[in-house]
């Protein structure tokens, strides 16, 4: 299964709408980095509104992809993390502290624009 990555001007938009298995998550990591490379995108929004579980593995993959994209020169914002997911992550002891987040896609794009203008 592949997660679609949409390009909009300098941004890449991803909405994860499936229950992520490990293989799909790893594949997504690779796909996103290649897409950043070939498109020259400077900002990425990963929307997690439809994701109702993030376990430690998926959290690691998401945290890593943010760091990896940053190394390549693209900023990533995670948006739409559900209340139940946020509570579960903290119980798990996962704080994703260095990961930029926003309430929804719209706020995420605003945050990206601000970060890229700085």
């Amino acid at each position, binding site marked *: 299964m592949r997660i679609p990555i949409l390009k909009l001007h300098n941004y890449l938009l991803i909405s994860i709408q499936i229950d992520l*298995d490990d293989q799909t998550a790893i594949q997504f990591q690779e796909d996103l980095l290649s897409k950043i490379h070939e498109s020259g995108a400077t900002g990425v929004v990963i929307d997690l509104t439809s994701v*109702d*579980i*993030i*376990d430690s593995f998926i959290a690691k993959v998401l945290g890593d992809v943010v760091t990896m994209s940053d190394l390549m020169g693209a900023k990533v914002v995670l948006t739409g993390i559900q209340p139940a997911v946020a*509570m*579960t992550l903290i119980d798990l002891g996962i704080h994703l502290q260095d990961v930029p987040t926003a309430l929804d896609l719209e706020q995420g794009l605003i945050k990206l624009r601000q970060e890229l203008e700085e």
Partner: protein
Amino acid sequence: MDFQSCVNIKKEWDIVGARQLGRDISRKIGFGTVDQARIATTISELARNIYLYAGTGKVCFEALEDMNKKGIRIVATDDGPGIQDISQVMEDGFTTSGGLGAGLPGVKRLMDSFDIVSTEEEGTEISVVKWLR
């Protein structure tokens, strides 16, 4: 409610299958969305540990009901190498697989009770319970 169902963990996709079944069962028991997420995440962590460290095993669910409370018991069993030092794997951040080391200590925080029995060369059984509030 008195039933038990199990999911065999043999391939990576079974992790997803196990947590989806566990979530369905917990919804039927009456857990809210936050506890459903806690239960599904717990199952995911336990099933992944089986897949990563033992190769194969199973995760079983049991709906619990007594006079005044309902809950779910999740039992993850494998015939893997066992855990040498249980206190070490219960430490936040300890990992041998390059993960976050959040799995077992995290599961303990997500659930109401947590029991682990592990024998070297024989396997591991982890049993957790979440009660409905």
